[in-house]
């Protein structure tokens, strides 16, 4: 089965720079979306370090068999995390920089998604949209009992505040999930600049209309997010499993 990919990243309408980064390699079935945090320049640097780090790790590895994908992703994110964390430590003006990360990787008949933060990956299958990843934010972690609200340093902290991001701490825990791929499926990885502007049904409706042309679909999603206000940087990565 062949994979088709398309992606776009845009500054949005309110921000002064684009702190999102994007990389994808259709031939090898890998794509990364990162959304930097930690000030104007810091966020940009962090997301670039994440995307470049994963790309380097991938290019530097030999053939990755399906049973090696999880250790590869874990190890690559470890290294990237150390680089971002180290950068913040060595450059006090960028202290606190970090980045979300969505890495989608096609191997054999499986799709692997490595996820940190509140960027998201969705599956669009047979006209229906499913969010695969869990936003690593306070609200979700409290809801699932992973964090007790009492234990928060600031109990009034916003529910959307990030609990995990690459480079924030010495060790970065990530979610790695896998799903069996099927022809016709479309995987969407995106920064929260898209999902904070459009709800899932709007995204699903746009994908339903434009799923035949991935590049166009990515552009349409981006335009729709901008039309809705474009409050944040917007990055969209689409990957379709061909063969139907």
């Amino acid at each position, binding site marked *: 089965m062949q994979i088709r990919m398309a992606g776009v990243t845009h500054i949005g309408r309110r921000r002064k720079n684009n702190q999102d980064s994007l990389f994808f390699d259709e031939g090898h079935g890998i794509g990364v979306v990162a959304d930097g945090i930690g000030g104007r320049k810091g966020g940009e640097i962090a997301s670039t370090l994440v995307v470049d780090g994963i790309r380097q790790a991938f290019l530097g*590895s*030999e053939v990755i068999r399906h*049973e*090696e*994908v*999880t*250790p590869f992703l*874990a*190890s690559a994110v*470890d290294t990237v995390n150390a680089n971002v964390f180290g950068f913040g430590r060595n450059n006090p003006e960028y202290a606190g920089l970090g980045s979300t990360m969505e890495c989608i990787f096609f191997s054999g008949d499986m799709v692997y998604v490595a996820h940190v933060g509140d960027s998201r990956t969705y*599956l669009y*299958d*047979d*006209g*229906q*949209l*499913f*969010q*695969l990843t*869990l936003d690593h934010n306070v609200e979700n972690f409290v809801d699932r009992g992973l964090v007790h609200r009492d234990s928060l340093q600031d109990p009034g902290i916003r529910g959307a505040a990030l609990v995990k991001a690459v480079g924030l701490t010495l*060790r970065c*825990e990530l*979610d*790695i*999930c*896998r*799903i*069996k791929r099927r022809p016709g499926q479309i995987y969407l990885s995106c920064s929260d600049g898209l999902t904070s502007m459009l*709800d*899932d*049904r709007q995204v*699903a409706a746009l994908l339903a209309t434009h799923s035949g042309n991935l590049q166009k679909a990515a552009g349409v999603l981006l335009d729709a997010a901008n039309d809705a206000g474009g409050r944040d940087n917007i990055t969209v990565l689409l990957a379709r499993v061909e063969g139907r």
Partner: protein
Amino acid sequence: MGRAKLYLIRRDLETFTGPVTAAELARLIERMAVGFRDEVTGHCGPWIFLDDRDKLKKFYSELLPIVQAASVSGWSSDANEFRNEPTIKGPVILAVKKPDRRLILAAAFFGLAIFAAMIAWVFVGSGELSSRIIGSQIPPASELTALLQTGGEKEFISLMEPQLPRIIDRGNRNHDVMAAWLPFLRAYAFYGAGEIDGFSSKKLRGESGVAAPADCSVKAWSKRWNDAYPSFNAVAKGGPLPSDHWARLLAWDSHWINRRSQSGWIRPRNFYQGCVMAASRAFDSIPAGATADVVRERLALLTAVLQNPGKAQGEGGPGKKTGSGKASVFGLWTCMDSARNRIELDQCLEAPWQNLMQSDYNREKFYWSMLRLAVKARSEGDQASWPLLRNDLQAFISGRDQSDSYTRIDYADELHFVGTINGVLPAVMDTTPLPSGPVKSLTGDIQIDLAH
């Protein structure tokens, strides 16, 4: 005709099943391929645990009858164990003005029931309750632990085997039960196939073991060994190291593994040990012969050392070990692993390994072995060995990553222990004797016993 509504099932935030229709989901539940602690989502909907009746009713009410039917049909006999269902249902309000004898008896009965529940709760910490929940056929946790610690693996397996489906089912629905049984599920897996049908490999693995393959089942290792067979000779003779798990496993540092005990593990003591056990068992299917025996010797030593930590220190020495594979790169690694002091370690630089020591990785591994000796010297307050080890380690550590470049094993804790700060080893070693037993608690649930 409209499209059928589809659902996606998620287990442990790790694996997905589907998308499937409601009818297919019903069949999956019936076949126990999906449990009540799994989550479900529909088109543009939220993720809901299947045992969360209230939210299921709110978001996917069409699934409620399926889950209810399954809950009363057999494999889950706990219709009242839904997340939001009160555990004890309140008594029906009786329209009586004075308490009669039956009411007093009923109150006494409920009082006893609550008392019994409290007693049971007290046992949760020791894992005894989970035995009782699972059934009276299986001995308590303390007995199973004793079996594992005294070599009674066969009896352990035979006791666990018939109860596995119940344990997994209950564990999937109750975190405390799972926490209590996880060490035994892991022991069961790694004294057998390295996996358990229908049980999450992520749970089996736990949070550690980043350097190990995700799948450490005997089946996966059999395939790896068979695929790797043609490469054995070339690697043994010092050829390029492949980025394959089989070769990485042979390069693992048994001392590093032995130093780590992890909560949630009894035997094996951590995922790496389990992985070596499975790899070793899988290798039994490789036919004997000079090619295979070189690997077999290394694997046998790793297994023996992991099962009996004293073997690494007590029977080491470069001159004593290994047979036909002694001159191979695997023999060299065994030499380094077996060295008990700097003099023995230096012998690994000599014949028959001097050519193999030209390799960047073998030289790196030499220094990781030296770090082990430094840890030993540090923990024993050995002032005589320290200066020599410190000087050599200093140059090695400066500016390099803290993990083994090939196996990805992370030595940050060892380096921290011997005193590196930003890559600088202290000139003077603290000679205060360290307490016996685990001397350092690592982040999370791993303990490192540096006496090993």
